[in-house]
């Protein structure tokens, strides 16, 4: 029964994609109904599975799974199938909720119910319709022209994510991975009329593609070594032992190399340094897309995959040992990215960019946690982050929406996304304000009440407890900066007085947008309580650490809960509260970017990584394409070769014609024979003189000659 449902979970969004695209493209209400219906069906299926899974004892050992033979490969088959074990159960849980929330949100975000814009074209964001109300004209937001297409695309995106989550093998996981890559391209470049959106879409696709290539190498390596792609085959203890004891390239074991290759895929997909450059540019897409990509689904997929592969990258390692090479690399990149992202986020003025770098940073947290072996902590943070980051993105979209309403109302042409144009929005948009606050505090790790606290605290505890102090300090700094820039964001946006006319006239968004915010806020608060560590002072033990038991059961050996230590707890409290306070203090006075001391060029320009990549990779690539390959190789060499061949052929033809065909064949043989015939004719015709005596002379002369010849040569008179 469960297997049947699991197979069906990814299907409704796929069907919705096809139906909307093929049939209901023109009918907006029907399209969103189909899309939400599909998301709802998948949500229902996921919930059923999750609840069933909760009821199974030792779910880690008795998970739901089913597989079929798919590709014949000689004597064996490549099997594909579905599998819901504890890890994927919680992941499918949050995916279902966030996807459904985002779908509902999109209805309001794209202004369903509003009139068509004055001069809206498909491919550009809608910018208002003029209506006459109470006798005077004013502009109101207009409906998105490509409304149905949006729902089709996010349905496909949802399909990709569900496929990835429910799959039990690397192949279908990779299929879902790539589908999401495609959808990220389609959705980031949704407003294809904007050149910046087009470029951002290409950048996202290219950058994640780099990671995907290495991941595919890793998958190929796995298959060639183990002969299978199913998780249950690869992650068997015997297999892992074999993998970790076989040595492969660069001094690493096979498991190490595979782990590294797969991790590079995660680096690309989850926007870790050095492949982080696509994620901030991806803010060009509509906000629900940003929420989906950067919170609920795509980046989470990267982390999910590497968490799933944890037994592989930690093959040969057990708790207490120093980290093996792969894990060190993972931990380093994770920690570095966490700090790196946070440093850039403090200098961004666009409300979505702050959240983008925040995502990069938080993903770094998860990956660092995984790198040091804190499996459960990484998974926990993954889930909580999905909820509060989706909440924050949707909240920012709501803010922008309200600001746009104000922009249209006042015809004040300012950038509705710039935080320095906002201010005082808490009075204008209360629901958005409170839910954003909850999300922001969760991100910062506000103690006890927010889910973010519990998951972050667990990471700190793990880092400190396993003795990785450098990582601990890095993460603590990053957490401080996180709280700081979060509060900066909240202060600039919601507190104070409106700094522009548009902000003054901002209004709350419709229920289709605020309801998802509320739902997500509930999770952002409540989900943390399922993972309270047992040894936590006071609250520990009141509620069993269900998350640890449940998700930890995915591994063969249940990881030990980290011993409680005051230091990480104090640190976490300090950085969280301190950052929040500090942020509020500094920024409640700041009214413009000039007063913002953190507007340092290095940080504002993202440590110039875009420029470095442009110089090192993009420009040479262009040069190779344009100058070397196109101009030199193609035009000069190859075309030159072809032209020489052509010229030679022409020359041959000309030579033949001039030196052989014309003189020899035409003149000598052709005309020549004619001329010979003519000459001989005109010569010989004179014999036919018509004069009888001439004929007679000739015949008698010849007779005499023959007679003489006969006489002298042949016979003579007998």
């Amino acid at each position: 029964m469960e297997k049947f449902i699991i197979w069906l979970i990814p299907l409704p969004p796929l069907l919705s994609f096809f139906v909307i695209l093929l049939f209901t493209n023109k009918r907006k209400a029907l399209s969103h109904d189909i899309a939400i219906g599909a998301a709802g069906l998948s949500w229902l299926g996921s919930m059923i599975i999750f609840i069933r899974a909760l009821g199974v004892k030792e779910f880690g050992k008795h998970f739901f799974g089913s597989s079929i033979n798919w590709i014949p490969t000689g004597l064996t088959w490549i099997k594909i199938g579905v599998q819901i074990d504890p890890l994927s159960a919680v992941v499918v849980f949050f995916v279902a909720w966030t996807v459904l929330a985002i779908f509902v949100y999109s209805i309001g975000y794209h202004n369903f119910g509003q009139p068509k814009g004055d001069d809206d074209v498909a491919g550009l964001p809608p910018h208002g319709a003029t209506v006459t109300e109470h006798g005077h004209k004013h502009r109101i937001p207009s409906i998105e022209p490509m409304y149905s297409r949006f729902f089709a695309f996010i349905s496909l995106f949802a399909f990709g994510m569900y496929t990835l989550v429910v799959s039990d093998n690397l192949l279908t996981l990779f299929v879902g991975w790539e589908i999401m890559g495609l959808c990220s391209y389609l959705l980031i470049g949704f407003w294809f009329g904007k050149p910046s959106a087009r470029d951002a879409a290409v950048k996202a696709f290219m950058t994640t593609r780099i990671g995907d290539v290495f991941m595919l190498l890793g998958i190929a390596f796995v298959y060639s070594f183990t002969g299978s792609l199913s998780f249950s085959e690869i992650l068997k203890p015997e297999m892992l032992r074999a993998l970790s004891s076989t040595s492969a390239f660069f001094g690493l074991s096979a498991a190490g190399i595979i782990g590294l290759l797969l991790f590079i895929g995660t680096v690309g997909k989850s926007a870790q340094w050095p492949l982080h450059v696509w994620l901030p540019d991806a803010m060009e897409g509509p906000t629900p897309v940003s929420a989906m990509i950067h919170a609920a689904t795509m980046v989470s997929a990267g982390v999910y995959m590497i968490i799933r592969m944890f037994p592989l990258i930690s093959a040969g390692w057990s708790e207490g040992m120093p980290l093996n090479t792969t894990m060190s690399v993972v931990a380093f990149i994770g920690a570095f990215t966490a700090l790196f992202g946070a440093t850039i986020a403090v200098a961004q003025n666009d409300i979505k960019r702050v959240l983008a770098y925040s995502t990069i940073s938080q993903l770094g947290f998860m990956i660092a946690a995984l790198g040091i072996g804190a499996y459960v902590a990484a998974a926990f943070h993954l889930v909580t982050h999905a909820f509060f980051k989706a909440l924050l993105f949707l909240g920012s979209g709501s803010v922008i929406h309200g600001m746009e309403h104000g922009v249209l109302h006042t015809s004040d042409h300012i950038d509705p996304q710039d935080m320095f144009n906002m201010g005082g929005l808490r009075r204008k948009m209360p629901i958005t304000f409170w839910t954003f606050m909850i999300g922001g505090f969760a991100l910062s790790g506000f103690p006890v009440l927010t889910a973010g606290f519990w998951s972050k605290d667990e990471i700190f505890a793990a880092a400190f407890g396993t003795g990785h102090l450098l990582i601990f300090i890095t993460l603590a700094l990053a957490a401080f900066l996180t709280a700081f820039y979060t509060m900066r964001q909240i202060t600039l946006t919601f507190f104070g007085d409106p700094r522009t006319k548009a902000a003054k006239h901002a209004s709350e968004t419709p229920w289709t947008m605020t309801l998802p915010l509320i739902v997500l806020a509930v999770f952002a608060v409540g989900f943390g309580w399922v993972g309270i560590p047992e040894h936590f002072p006071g609250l520990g033990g009141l509620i069993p650490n269900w998350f640890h038991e449940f998700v930890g059961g995915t591994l063969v050996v249940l990881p030990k809960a980290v011993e409680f230590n005051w230091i990480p707890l104090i640190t976490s409290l300090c950085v969280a509260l301190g950052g929040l306070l500090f942020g509020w203090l500094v920024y409640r006075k700041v009214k413009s970017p000039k007063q913002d001391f953190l507007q340092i060029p290095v940080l504002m320009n993202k440590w110039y990584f875009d420029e470095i990549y442009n110089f090192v990779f993009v420009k040479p690539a262009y040069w190779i394409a344009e100058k070397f390959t196109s101009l030199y190789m193609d035009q000069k060499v190859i075309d030159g070769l072809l032209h020489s061949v052509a010229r030679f052929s022409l020359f041959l033809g000309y030579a033949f014609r001039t030196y052989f065909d014309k003189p020899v064949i035409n003149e000598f043989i052709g005309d020549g024979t004619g001329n010979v015939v003519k000459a001989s004719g005109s010569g010989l015709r004179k014999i036919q003189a018509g004069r009888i005596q001439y004929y007679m002379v000739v015949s008698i002369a010849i007779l005499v000659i023959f007679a003489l010849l006969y006489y002298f040569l042949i016979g003579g008179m007998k």
Partner: protein
Amino acid sequence: MTADQIIFLLCAALILGSALMTVTTRKLIHAALWLVAALFGVAILFAILQAGFLAVVQVVVYIGAIAILFIFAVMLTRRVVLDKGQQTRSNWWIPALLGLLILGGLVFLILGQPDFGRTAVEMPTGVDTLRNLGTALVSPDAFVLPFEVASILLLAALVGAVYIATGNKE
């Protein structure tokens, strides 16, 4: 040199001389008359050869008919004054050469045959050549067929000549 030979030589001189004049004289009527002389000489020769009938036929047919025909033809074509200027073609020496060559060749061949040096056999006595000739001409064992064919030939010639000569009068 017997008397026969001398007569023969005189006769030969007549014939050849007349023939030469026929073919070289300027005026066409003179040529016809010289032909008459040559034919006369041939008749004499026939008489010497004791073919009396043939001699008479020669005179009657050849001179009496054919030569007269020639003279009539010359008369009928007199309007074209052609008796002035060269009467032979400009390359007359080729036919002369050819003629001499043929003559030379024939003489050579004749003299090369020892048999041709003989003298005439005796005329058999009691042979009436004329009667024999007549018999031979109409006898079925002899030459009646050629005789009849020759008649038809003459008829054809007659008809043809009349037809051609009258032309397209209507």
